[in-house]
Each structure stands twice: as structure tokens, then as C-alpha cells.
């Protein structure tokens, strides 16, 4: 395998947790609720997976537990922001701080213990025979395939179904959606909860496919990158795929340059994704200066029916 193929494989592997978390964030924010709790949710997802997998030995149980725990956190976030109309930035930051702290505490007992297994890989014999593509897609794990299918599913959901139309309406103009008989609060609850569960799954993917054991704070800021990727991808699942893999590639590129024995200090290499973030944001900002940004228009604004304008 040549360098490019290896890099692509590494990009997908590093990009998958980012992708899952970004998709979760897109669902959240399309419904009009800011999700800054991604880092905490990912950590909670990772630690839940580790504990349940090590204690029970069942991967399925571990994943279900992860979805349940993070969905519960999502319900709390939506209760705060949708029903109580709390400040969404504060609620998200609280979620991150709470998740970091609680995961560190819960993870103490299993810290450093190896997981009984990883996310099972799908061996696709007939794909393997194709050069390059076979190397990349021949043995991806289940979660990666799931994330790819999810991209397609969410794209279709948002752009080609009535649910998607309702979702966009709720995120852009809840007052209008309400007048049209769409249940704004219910939709916001559903997507915030589903989004949180997806972000939790991103955490699970971190420990199942990326890092083999639990370490305190193992996400190392990936939740925050996902928050940025949501904006980068302009709330679009297809773009999220490219953005996530692009960042995955940058992430592993630094690692690989280091392996090649380059004289560049590793700290600089680790900065690459973030420097690129700033550059890309500047470029996009310039290119799209006369267009709507794609931001859901009522992102961050709670909806109250009888509020006077």
C-alpha cells in the first residue's frame, strides 16, 4: 500500500468519530438548538461503552447503553433549552464540563484496561479485489459503514421528505412552523435527543475503533472540532462527510510526517488542523460574503408562541 492509500485509510478511521459527532450536531442545530456539549457527550459515550463492554462483554449491550445514556443527556439539554428556555450556550458548556468530570470519575475503575474487542470489521471479498478502493473499503468496521449510510439517510431525510421540511422550518422560523400546525417543541426535543445519542456514538467509536482503552479526556478536543465542523459543513450531511474526512486526514498527516522523522516539532504538526480551520473559514467567509450563510435562522432562540413582536 502506498502512502496515499494509507493516509486515506487513516483519514477515514480518524474521521469517523468526527463525522458521527458532526451529524449529531447538524440534527441538533437544524432544529434550532445550539449544541456545545459535544465534547462532554462524546466522553460520556466513550466511558459508557468501555464500562459496559468490559463488565458485560457484550458489544451490543454496550452500544445500547451508550445511546441510552447520551440520549438521556440530550433530553436534559432539550428540557433546559426548549421547555425552560435556558441559555443554550450555557447549557451546552455545562454539558461539556459535566460530561468531562463525570466520565473521568466513572472511568477510574476501568482506566487502562483493554476492551474485550473492537468494532467488528465487514470483510467484503468482492470489493477487496479492486485495487486501491478494495484496500480502503474492503475492511471497514461496522460503525464506519453505519456512519456512511447515515450520511445518505440524513441527506435524503433533510432534502426529500416531509420530516426534513418540518425540521428546516422549525430551525429557521418556528413561529411559521407553529402556525402551519407543526409541533415545534416536540420536533426540537426529538432531534436534540437523537443528535446527542449520535454524538455519544461518536464517543463509542473513539474507543472501539480508534483508541483501544479508556483514558481520561481521551477525545482531546474532538467534540469541539465537531462543533466547528457543523458550521464548516454548513449544516449539510454530505459536506459533513468531506469535512470530517478532511480533518481526519490532516490529523493523521501530522502523525505520519512525524513518523517520517521530520525535523518539524510535533507541536507544530498538531496545530495543522486548527490552522487549516482558520484559513478555510477565512476563505469561505470571503467566497460566501453575499449569500445567506446557511445558518438555521433561529439557531439559539427559544420559541414562545404568545411572544409579541
Amino acid at each position, binding site marked *: 500500500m502506498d502512502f496515499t492509500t494509507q493516509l486515506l485509510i487513516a483519514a477515514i478511521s480518524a474521521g469517523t468519530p468526527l463525522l458521527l459527532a458532526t451529524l449529531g450536531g447538524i440534527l441538533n442545530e437544524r432544529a434550532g438548538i445550539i449544541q456545545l456539549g459535544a465534547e462532554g457527550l462524546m466522553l460520556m459515550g466513550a466511558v459508557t461503552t468501555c464500562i459496559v463492554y468490559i463488565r458485560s462483554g457484550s458489544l451490543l449491550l454496550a452500544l445500547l447503553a451508550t445511546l441510552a445514556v447520551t440520549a438521556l443527556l440530550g433530553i436534559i439539554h432539550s428540557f433546559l433549552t426548549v421547555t425552560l428556555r435556558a441559555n443554550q450556550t450555557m447549557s451546552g458548556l455545562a454539558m461539556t464540563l459535566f460530561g468531562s468530570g463525570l466520565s473521568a470519575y466513572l472511568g477510574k475503575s476501568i482506566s487502562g484496561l483493554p476492551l474485550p474487542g473492537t468494532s467488528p470489521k465487514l470483510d467484503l471479498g468482492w470489493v477487496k479485489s479492486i485495487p486501491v478502493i478494495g484496500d480502503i473499503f474492503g475492511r471497514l468496521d461496522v460503525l464506519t459503514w453505519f456512519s456512511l449510510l447515515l450520511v445518505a439517510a440524513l441527506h435524503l431525510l433533510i432534502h426529500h421528505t416531509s420530516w426534513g421540511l418540518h425540521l428546516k422550518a422549525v430551525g429557521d422560523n418556528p413561529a411559521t412552523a407553529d402556525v*402551519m400546525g407543526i409541533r415545534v417543541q416536540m420536533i426540537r426535543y426529538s432531534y436534540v435527543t437523537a443528535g446527542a445519542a449520535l454524538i455519544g456514538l461518536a464517543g463509542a467509536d473513539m474507543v472501539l475503533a480508534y483508541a483501544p482503552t479508556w483514558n481520561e479526556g481521551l477525545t482531546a478536543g474532538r467534540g469541539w472540532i465537531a462543533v466547528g465542523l457543523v458550521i464548516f459543513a454548513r449544516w449539510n450531511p454530505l459536506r459533513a462527510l468531506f469535512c470530517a474526512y478532511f480533518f481526519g486526514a490532516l490529523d493523521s498527516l501530522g502523525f505520519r510526517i512525524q513518523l517520517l522523522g521530520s525535523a518539524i516539532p510535533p507541536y507544530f504538526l498538531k496545530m495543522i488542523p486548527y490552522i487549516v480551520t482558520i484559513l478555510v473559514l477565512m476563505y469561505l467567509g470571503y467566497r460566501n460574503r453575499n449569500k445567506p450563510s446557511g445558518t438555521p435562522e433561529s439557531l439559539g432562540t427559544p420559541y414562545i408562541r404568545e411572544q409579541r413582536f
Partner: protein
Amino acid sequence: MQNHSVEMRGIVKRFGSVTASDQVDFSANAGEIHALLGENGAGKSTVMSMLSGVYRADEGEILIHGQTAKIRSPKDAAMLGVGMVFQNFRLVQTLTAAENIVLGEKSSFWRGSKWIKNKHAEIEALGERFGLHVPVDRPIWQLSVGEQQRVEIVKTLYRGADIIILDEPTSVLTPGEVEQLFETLRVMKKAGKTVIMTTHKMKEVMASSDRISVMRKGKMIATLDTAKTGELELARLMVGREVIITRQEREAVQGKPLLTVNHLEVTADHGRKALEGLSLSVRAGEIVGIAGVAGNGQKELAEVLTGLRAWKSGEIVFDGKPVKTASVRGAIDAGISHVPENRMKSGLAGRLGSVDNLLFKSYRSSEHSRFGILKAAKNRSWSQELVQRFNVKTPELDTPVQQLSGGNQQKLLFAREVSHRPKLMVAVHPTQGLDVGATAGVHELLMELRGSGSGVLLISEDLDELLQLSDRILVIYGGSIIGETDHEHADREEIGLMMAGIRHREENAV
């Protein structure tokens, strides 16, 4: 006794201590256009919002087609066939017209290209029937206000409404579009629908409706047949006193030139040319009206004069001194005050109280602050005085100004702009959305400014207002002044033609 399609009995709605609707009785019939007339804040929109389920009534009952109806949400209203076209359109800007129209539809989960095509055809056909052309596949943010309103109307029709409420439908339309709207309303009426329209414009009520209900201060005053009443009676009912609408008489202006603009070239936001070789002048003690259809450069002209926008070439001389660069601070210090087009967007800070809003332009002066620290007590009494002098009705000085009525907000804005004795006032649509009483108040203030020797540049789409107040009227079209007429010789029709870009036979030098 006739069977009403809508009947509201003893409707009461309170917002905190304010009773917006006080024991209101209202009824409308199928196959009529019923106008609900009243000043701003009279409670028209509140009553209609209860009919459409946006607000819930505190007391009273609503009957639809003779049956007691429980309307607890917009959904309930839609089920009963009640549809409302709001003043602030309920449209999702990023979605296309068709997507907005089918938004509430729960059926057909999958929306492939065939489904969309069928819907487009269905919507276009429906629009055609009522004389409404809708660009189905374009996103709302690309549509003009008139087109957006048509989307709103088609939306209510598409949802099968047979009771259609339009809240201040004409306030955003050009005269031509208004005529078109009335035509549509007549088609609806013929189709047996109940059309209810709230408005504060008497002329339009007289031109379009069959019956008129008049509201004042949250109470229903009277319901009349349009054929048996007239504007004067309506005005009296609406305001509660006699209103005299006359042209302001005045003496000719002799003041010195205050503002001279020569060959101004300005580029608008997207690189489009907004002003092309525009020249005009304003003398002290003169009101110069700028007539024109929106989008011909009025906005940019006002922005340049108030320092908000830079210009490409041309010369501006104010009060004998050439203006070199665009600076808001410079304009304020030079004595140019500004009544912006949208008072809540760029005129007032909605969540702050009257004191802060009044201070915005003068807080730097030694009267109001010292070493950067505001003189709180003094500013308060100063504000109190201004609020009284300009007759601003506010529960308290600290009440957020967004809770005041439009008229009172505008009075507050004028209080601030007039308080520092401007040499020139640039007023953009100063009476937009104001009722008869508040409009008269604003007109009085402008005439007072004129009397005290200030110049006024009045940019307005309301031709009556311009004819009433201006010493000279300039017509702006395509970014330059294409005609001029003075107070004595102003002719409605001629100005109207020029607004449409048809030049006067003799080129008027400006």
C-alpha cells in the same frame, strides 16, 4: 337573522395590565369582504390572532358557521378553515415558495422530483384561479414583498381556508399591487369565501370592502355598510374626534442654501449602481420631499447624507463646508439628524428604556456626562421633560421601548433627533405604520422644524404626505432626480408618471 360564518362574542384578552381586547363582538359573513378598521394598537390584530389561534382569548366565545368552536392553536383554526395572512409574513426564508405552501402537509413522507413537480403544477393552477402569480421554485429570500404576500395568500387557499384573514395587507404594497390584491379579494368573495381585512387606511377600506367594523382602544365601536358611510365618519369613529386633513399652507422659503449635493455616484451593497449623478439642494427652513418607488436609491441617499455609506464620486456641501468622508459622528456633530426607515432596527434599542434611547446621540456632551460618567439624575429629569414635551405615552421611563406602540416609538425618536436642534433632518418614511393621530403629530413636528429654520429632506412613498408637507418635491428614479415641482404647482398625476420613470416633457434643471 343571517347565519354568520364567523361570530365572536364578548372576547376579552389581556396582556399583563393592558386589555388589548375588551368585550369585543364581531361577525362576518360568507361572500363578503369585511374590513376591520382601527388605529394602530386599537386591538384589530389581537382579535384576529385569537380567531386564528395564535392567542387564546381570556373570555368570550367564537362561533364558526354557527357552531361553537374551541380554537386553542393555529392547528385548530386551520381545521376549521380559518387562515391568516400575517403582517409579518409567516414564511421560512430559506425554503422555496412551494415548500412553504406545503409545509403543514403531513401526508406523503417521501418527496421525490415527481411529487414536487405535481405540487408545483397544483399550486400554480390554484394561484391562477385567484389571479395570483407565484414563483413556486424560488426561495423566499429572493422574492419581493409583494410576491411574498402572494405566497402567503396562496398558502391559506391551498390549506383549504374558507375564512381568510389579512392583517394590514396593503401596508407593504405599492399602489399597483394594492389594486391587484383587491382584485384577488373580489375573486375570493365570489368563490363564497369570508374575507376579513384589518387596516388603518380609510381610502382602501372604502375602495374594497362590503362592510366595515371599527375598533378603538380595544373596543368595538361600530359596524357599518361601506355604501352607507364615508371617510369622514370613519375617521371620527376611529380616532374618536374630528380629524381635519388639509394641506399645510405656508409662506415661500427664503433661507440660505444648507445642503448641496452635486453629481453623487454611489454603489449599493452588491456592486449595483444605486445613485448615478444625483444632484439636489435643501435650503434652511425648507422641506424637500423625495418621491419615488422603493429601491430607486432613496435608502442609499439617506445613508450617504447621514454618514452611513461612502460615496464614489460627487460633491456634498453642508452648511458651507464640503463633506469629505462618510462619518456618522461627523454628520451628528455637523447637525444632521436622522429618522431611519426602520425605527426598531436602526433607530431605537428595543430592550432599553426611554432614557438610554434618548441619550444615544448626546451622551458625550458635558450636559449629560462628565469624564465618561453619565449624570444619571440629570439625564432622567431631562428625559422626563422630553417625554412630556413630545407627548410620548410610556408606562415608565424605564419601560423597554419595544413595548410602546409604533406612534409612541416614533415620537420618542423624534424627541431625540429634535432635541439637539438639528440644522437638517433626513426623515425616511417617518409615518410608515402610524395611525392617523400619530401621523398628524409627526407632520406637526416636521412643520415646526421647518418653522424654526431647519431643513428637512423627507423621503416618503406616501404621495399625500409629500404633497401636504413639501415646499418642493423631487422625483427620484434609477438613482437620479428626474423631475421637480414646487408646493404650488404639485400635480399628483404628473408626479406619479415620473415615479414610473416617464420624464416630464421639458427637462427640469435641478
